[in-house]
């Protein structure tokens, strides 16, 4: 076996460029996912039946179909309907964000439902509206509880973002493929790509652990 260290060193800058793009997709998709997830998660537990159904359909659909198919739907199928080419960057963020939103919705729903019912009753009996009680009482408490599963979801999303390489978007995985096409260095490049992914996911898990510790305040009843 011959491991070419020079190849690793030489291609590292390009791979890091790709990693930068991966981070960008992940961060933006997480932002989209959290906003959607919070909305859909609340829809799923609100008292308005049609909204609850809508939320359930959303989760079922985007959790029940492969992300890869969703990327194809946005990038290849959507233009057929609209007649407009879809920007790969938009397609990447949209499909990853929408997909992640379904998982985040379930995380938030479970987090909110884990808060003692007495909290909602206390808020409502003070004259606060449902929305006010959610905002000031329930969600702040739920947020602390969902930090660990949210961390998992973000790590999964970072790795899944490699799928957008199929639409030619040059994130880390795609960069690796392109370099291999020129140099045939499968071993060196895939090894480097794996190490870079690992470095990124470990960073997230450390950060999540920090958040968990930071917000581990006195919130037992």
């Amino acid at each position, binding site marked *: 076996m011959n491991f070419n260290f020079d190849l690793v060193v030489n291609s590292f800058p390009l791979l890091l460029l790709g990693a930068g793009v991966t981070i960008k997709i992940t961060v933006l998709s997480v932002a989209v996912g959290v906003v959607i997830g919070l909305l859909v998660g609340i829809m799923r537990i609100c008292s308005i039946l049609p909204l609850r159904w809508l939320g359930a359909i959303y989760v079922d659909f985007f959790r029940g179909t492969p992300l890869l198919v969703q990327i194809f739907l946005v990038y290849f199928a959507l233009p057929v309907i609209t007649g407009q080419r879809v920007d790969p960057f938009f397609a990447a963020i949209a499909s990853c964000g929408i997909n992640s939103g379904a998982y985040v919705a379930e995380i938030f729903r479970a987090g909110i439902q884990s808060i*003692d019912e*007495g*909290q909602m*009753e*206390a*808020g*409502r*009996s*003070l*004259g*606060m*509206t449902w929305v*006010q009680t959610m905002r*000031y*009482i329930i969600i*702040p*408490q739920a947020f*602390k509880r969902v930090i660990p599963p949210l961390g998992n979801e973000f790590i999964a999303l970072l790795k899944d973002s490699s799928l957008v390489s199929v639409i030619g978007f040059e994130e880390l995985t795609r960069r690796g493929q392109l370099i291999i096409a020129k140099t045939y260095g499968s071993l060196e490049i895939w090894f480097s790509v794996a190490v870079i992914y690992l470095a990124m996911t470990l960073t997230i898990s450390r950060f999540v652990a920090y958040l968990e510790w930071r917000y581990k*305040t*006195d*919130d*037992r*009843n």
Partner: protein
Amino acid sequence: MIEIKDLHKSYGDVEVLKGIDLTVNEKEVVVIIGPSGSGKSTFLRCMNYLEVPTSGMVKVDGIELGKDSNINKVREEVGMVFQRFNLFPHMTVIENIMLAPIKVRHVSRSEAEKTAMELLDRVGLADRAAAYPNQLSGGQQQRVAIARALAMKPKVMLFDEPTSALDPEMVGEVLDVMRKLAEEGMTMVIVTHEMGFAREVGDRLLFVDEGKILEQGDPKEVFEHPKEERTKAFLSKVL
């Protein structure tokens, strides 16, 4: 202050409240006793619409509770104290008390803080303003919960077994606060198992069993000369 007519409440096939009438006058202290499962907590919770009655009428301060009434407006005037305190664990004691006045009554922060400190002083916890609920004993938490309800300056206070979750040595401090409140002329409806307190502080005693008011009257009278067999049987067990 509170007017209830022919109140029924069912969960599925189980009828918990079987037609209750009650009028609570201003400054009156009504104490509700009865065996567990008799529907007394459900009855109390119908008074601020935490439970939606199956049928019947509940009127608070002249407003009939129902889908069309602004229930939040009514709840502003009806303080509630729960068996399990239900303080907001992510907020300090004083924040717990200040939240609703600021968000609902739209008073300024400084005014809310002033009121909160006065109330904490009244329940004897001024020095714990910056503590979190789980740093307090059960009795202290319940006193904070009472202060939190009072911060909305309610016209009526509802107490749902406020001392049932407390260690025995802490019951007294909570009852003392409630007694003071009654002396100051607060209208109160109290569900409790504290018979001594019911007798001493109550203006009227209701004995509720199987979803109905079986007997009511002056507490001393009911305790000493219960008319109904069920009341006698219950009192002989708890006194």
